[in-house]
């Protein structure tokens, strides 16, 4: 009877840890999906830590939810490590940029002629 009461009392405190833990896990997951290298490990680690504190200190309250919260952060951390170590990032082909590079050659001769000339430009 006493234990049940204590468990009910600890529920709001546990909830205060689990909500930020879940948010951190979701942020980490979003960052890992985008592919921000190893940086998602930061929020993921914080999410896991808060989840574990809640799990061990407030045993018996929101147990399934706690496992889900920790799971989200673990998935985000694994995804982050996997993407950083196994996937080779590439630059996508960009025709507009390629044509920009070609266009830089236009007018080069006249610019260089200007650079080589001995005509002095009046300083403004």
């Amino acid at each position, binding site marked *: 009877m006493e234990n049940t009461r204590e468990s009910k009392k600890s529920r709001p405190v546990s909830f205060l840890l689990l909500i930020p833990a879940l948010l951190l896990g979701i942020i980490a997951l979003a960052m890992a999906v985008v592919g921000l290298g190893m940086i998602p490990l930061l929020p993921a680690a914080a999410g896991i830590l808060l989840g574990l504190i809640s799990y061990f200190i407030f045993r018996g309250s929101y147990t399934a939810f706690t496992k889900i919260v920790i799971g989200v952060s673990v998935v985000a951390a694994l995804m982050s490590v996997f993407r950083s170590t196994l996937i080779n990032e590439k*630059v996508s082909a960009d025709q507009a*940029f390629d044509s920009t590079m070609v266009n830089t050659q236009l007018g080069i001769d006249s610019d*260089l002629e200007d650079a080589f000339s*001995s005509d002095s430009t009046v300083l403004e």
Partner: protein
Amino acid sequence: MKFWRHILSAISLTIILEINLFSQGGINTAFQSGESLRFKGSYFMSSLWADLAEVKIDVADLNSGGKSLYMITATASTFSNYDSFFKIRDLFQTYIDKNEVKPFLFKRIVDEGGYKFNMKYVINRNTLQAKFEFIRGPITRNSVIKITENTQDLVSVLYYVRTFDFEKVTVGKSISIPTLIDDKVEDIVITYRGKETIKTEAMGSVQCYKIGLSANNKAVVNKESNNIWLTADKNKVPVLVKAEIPVGSIQLRLVEARGLKQ
């Protein structure tokens, strides 16, 4: 009295020698046409990193107005997964004298998350003036900037530093290189910080010259932690660049080097 005169002469001679050793910079024995360097650009936060972009620098020959030039093209492009969030396609191009590593023309075409502008310097070494042109949408700005004999641009300064003979420079010595940044000339201070071994993807572990870089610029946070490592051989290839920015730090790591001179 004679003793002090000797001491003063010795100090003056040492200073002149140091200046001359750095001034040897400009005679190119470090790079050639066909050299291509590829770097990975990473952002660091609390010792964790994210590879964000690729930086490529290519050297090519160009003949114009009876002069032999190097056209050095540097591009910075974000990796494909970042393109939909913040796409960067930057282009820097400099045209330098083959023998003296002095720029005549510099172009910068910027596209950073939709923020676009074009910048150009036409650098006249006869009149020691640089014509500056800035175009952003309908806005065009022009000005003329006074330069000195040694004025460099943002790309040529790297290649100019590669021509220094660091074996003859004592650790801790500095030199200022006037560099065209935006619409003015700012001094970039190069400090030789000794040798270090750096592990690279492209070349394995290599001994490098550690060179400190600093400038009076808002983007530069901790002047001590902005460094570039050049291989301690004749090529002086940049293998690593580290710089601190207001939020974290950035790194450029050499991942591929082709067409090296030696």
